[in-house]
């Protein structure tokens, strides 16, 4: 009866004690089949004991390439606006607050030129157009500060006492030059 591969491998490793190792040696000498199996085991043992490392880098590169192409295939199936990004809640809240702040400040800045006292438009040709964009009360305040008087009230000039005035015809208005011409 032939020993199995496990017993032959143990025999090769010197793990079979006497008197069984002698019996296996005698069997190998007489059995061609077992001797062929034993030689293959010896060859495998010799390769494993040698210093040569198997060539694996090329295989590893192929695996990486394969994994990368699969990942790209999965991402490519979804457009950018449908992709979901796992973001921590504090980060999402911070970004939302930042965007809100920027939006509000932007809107305020854009509207600011219309809520001031005046809106000034610089024309491309270099001219300046001024539009009063303030309520009249604000303009009055501005004019008051400029002139030191309130425009809503008329100036009152009191004529001297005991001077009686008399009409001499219809009201007249014109330039001084016009009156001088008429006099001549």
């Amino acid at each position, binding site marked *: 009866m032939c020993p199995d591969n496990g017993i032959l491998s143990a025999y090769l490793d010197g793990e079979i004690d006497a008197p069984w190792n002698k019996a296996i040696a005698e069997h190998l000498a007489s059995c061609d089949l077992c001797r062929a199996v034993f030689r293959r085991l010896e060859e495998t043992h010799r390769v494993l004991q040698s210093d040569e490392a198997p060539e694996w880098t090329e295989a590893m590169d192929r695996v990486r390439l394969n994994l990368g192409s699969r990942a790209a295939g999965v991402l490519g199936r979804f457009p950018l606006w449908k992709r979901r990004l796992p973001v921590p809640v504090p980060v999402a809240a911070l970004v939302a607050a930042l965007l809100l702040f920027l939006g509000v400040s932007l809107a305020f*800045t854009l509207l600011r030129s219309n809520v001031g006292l005046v809106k000034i438009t610089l024309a491309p040709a270099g001219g300046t157009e001024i539009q009063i964009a303030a309520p009249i009360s604000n303009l009055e305040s501005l*004019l008051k500060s400029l002139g030191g008087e309130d425009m809503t009230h008329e100036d009152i000039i009191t004529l001297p006492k005991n001077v009686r005035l*008399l009409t001499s015809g219809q009201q007249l208005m014109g330039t001084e030059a016009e009156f001088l011409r008429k006099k001549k």
Partner: protein
Amino acid sequence: MRAARKKVVVPILLGLAVLQAHSQDREIDPNEALQSLLSKALTITISARVLPPDALDDQAIWNAETEKLTLPGRPIKVRLDGDNVRIYLVVTPYIQESGEILLLAQGQVWLSEPTDKEVKYSSTFYSIPVTFGEKVLFFPLGVSSEEPRSKDFFNIELEIKIVPYKESP
């Protein structure tokens, strides 16, 4: 995944920052606005003179002057109060495209004459193109070259002058 997140958030923030910076460029300086406003401002001087009936030029028995600051299109109002008269003068200057001033004025007069116990009222509108510094004369009670009706009564003359506003040094 982190790189993809950056691809979305960073361009948005950059875009907003650029818009913000652009809008800040357009912001008008209040001092500049005030200076532009002042460059359009006008000073209107109104002088009132009371003239005797037979007065020659520059022989007023009384005069007064008021100076008002305004903008083109904004009226100024002056009221003259006397014993038997009240005169309103409303002056609105407009700057025309030619650079000339178009002076719109309204004169209103309430007058009680000794011969009449009633109070007379008259109102007239004027539209006069003038240049800066040119004098405009207004006779609210009229002017006559004929012999005066009474030596005891006086006439009144108002002089209007418009010049660009200049800040006092």
